[in-house]
């Protein structure tokens, strides 16, 4: 009797799957005008904030937000509770614009029906979460770069002083850049769970990006280092008095939250209807 055997189809490896998915996501990122618009916004905001110093004249009404140009990148010390906009206006703002960008980027996947094409192939839900988190983290890191350039240009233009020790400044900048991964994972997760409510996903990304929950918590518990375990807390902790420990803390917090959000997002995608 002849036995009918199942055809021997090959399973793509994780490396193959990730390579193709990252390729597609990076292609999309570099070919969407939105990415460049957000890079420009990230550069313009610090330039505009720094330029407000130009308006500060003796007896004038406007006051300079900073005297030190590097404060547009990071505060002097970790301040979880902000008292004025000057304390708030630093590179952490990138994570707010970044949230909106991630919402639009992932929202396109669902509105165009692209996920339908993607998830009918061998792509895994975990690959999707990881690929989106990495690509969006890269985009936010680029925004940190243009923000830095915008801040420096604004500082030079307004004639502000540049006072900072090199290594703490470097640690602060790198600390904020590595936080991009954690933030991108949070936004990817939010947009996966709110994939059918585009408006809500943008709003929630914005609200969490502003760090309101941590600012509220800090108002209750004070400037506690315990808040550094959260994304906003660690982002604030990366300041002009940073050390290598700050950078390592930022890296650890970012990676741990990225793992948590990726795992949760994968679980939700795997247990719910995709499209």
């Amino acid at each position, binding site marked *: 009797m002849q036995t*009918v*055997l*199942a*055809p021997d*189809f*090959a*399973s*793509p490896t994780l490396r*193959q*799957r990730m390579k*193709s*998915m990252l*390729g*597609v996501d990076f*292609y*999309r990122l570099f*070919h969407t005008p939105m990415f460049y618009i957000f890079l420009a916004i990230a550069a313009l905001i610090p330039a505009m904030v720094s330029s407000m110093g130009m308006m500060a004249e003796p007896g004038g009404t406007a006051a300079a937000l900073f005297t030190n140009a590097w404060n547009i990148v990071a505060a002097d010390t970790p301040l979880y509770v902000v008292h004025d906009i000057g304390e708030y206006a630093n590179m952490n703002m990138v994570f707010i614009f970044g949230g909106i960008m991630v919402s639009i980027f992932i929202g*396109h996947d669902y509105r*165009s*029906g*692209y*996920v*339908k*094409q*993607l*998830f*009918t*192939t*061998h*792509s*895994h839900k975990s690959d999707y979460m990881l690929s989106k988190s990495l690509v969006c983290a890269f985009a936010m890191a680029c925004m940190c770069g243009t923000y830095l350039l915008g801040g420096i240009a604004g500082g030079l233009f307004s004639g502000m002083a540049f006072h900072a020790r090199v290594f703490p400044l470097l640690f602060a900048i790198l600390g904020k850049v590595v936080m991009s991964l954690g933030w991108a994972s949070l936004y990817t997760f939010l947009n996966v769970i709110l994939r059918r409510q585009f408006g809500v996903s943008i709003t929630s990304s914005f609200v969490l990006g502003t760090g309101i929950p941590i600012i509220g918590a800090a108002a209750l518990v004070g400037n506690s280092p315990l808040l550094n375990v959260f994304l906003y807390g660690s982002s604030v902790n990366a300041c002009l008095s940073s050390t290598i420990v700050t950078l390592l803390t930022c890296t650890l917090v970012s990676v741990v939250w990225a793992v948590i959000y990726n795992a949760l997002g994968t679980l939700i995608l795997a*247990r*719910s*209807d*995709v*499209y």
Partner: protein
Amino acid sequence: MNAIEIRGLSKRFGNKQAVDGLNMTVPEGAIYGFIGENGSGKSTTEKMICGLLHPASGSIQLYGKDHTDDAIRSQIGVLIEAPGCFPNVSVWNNMLLQAANLEIKHPEEEIAKVLKTVRMEGAASNKFKHCSLGMKQRIGIAMALLGHPRLLVLDEPINGLDADGMRIMREILTDITQKGNCTVLISSHILGELEKIATHYGIIRHGQMIREMTAQELEADCPTYIALRAGDGTGAKSYLEERYHRVAQEENGTLRIYDATRPEEVVSFLYEKGVTVSEVWTAKISLEEYYIDLMESRRAQA
């Protein structure tokens, strides 16, 4: 080996039982026409096969493997409702993205080939949003053909296609099943087109499979009848009912006699009664008529 084997598949959306214990068998190499009313559960079943929806219960086996298996997922080509393309991206680049998802080795060659197959090579540089409905459907088919799939799942693929598009579709599906070792599951409301290509049929109602059959079985189930047009249609009908048991009249006046075998016998019978027959021919019940009769009988039973 069956390409698709579904047992006891169920899916519920809120209060609506979309698919209810569905059983389905699609043999390898078949063009399986999946037929049913709107909301009968066709698209839901196809989405479950493709992994877009999670079944509440039941099993789906594709080529003997669970439908979630990576190895089999890379062998499926899909067109569900409309192709999932980025509107501001060109047709070619949308195809490139899907080719990357499928890890196709030489994407340019493959894309050029499938676009040529669906006669869309001239639209490659168009932005997807600028394509017409029919063009989008053809692009969706081209996308589903990328990577030489072993199983094609097509949900209403001929909607919006012009006559030429439908002909091309027929040629493609027949060709890939005969030469390409591919199986096709196709749902459509355009039964006349489906009848021309399908080798197997499955009829679904209220989420349950009410009939599965081969094209040969359908042929045997669809009786031949004698159709005629007479000067006095109403009179002719009453005469015919005296002699035959199964006589029906269409809206346009054409009379059908299901239990007569020889047209000349019917014509001479009416001639004897003084009725002139202007046209007479033999015909077969179409898939559409068969389907409508089946649905009506099910409704009557319900």
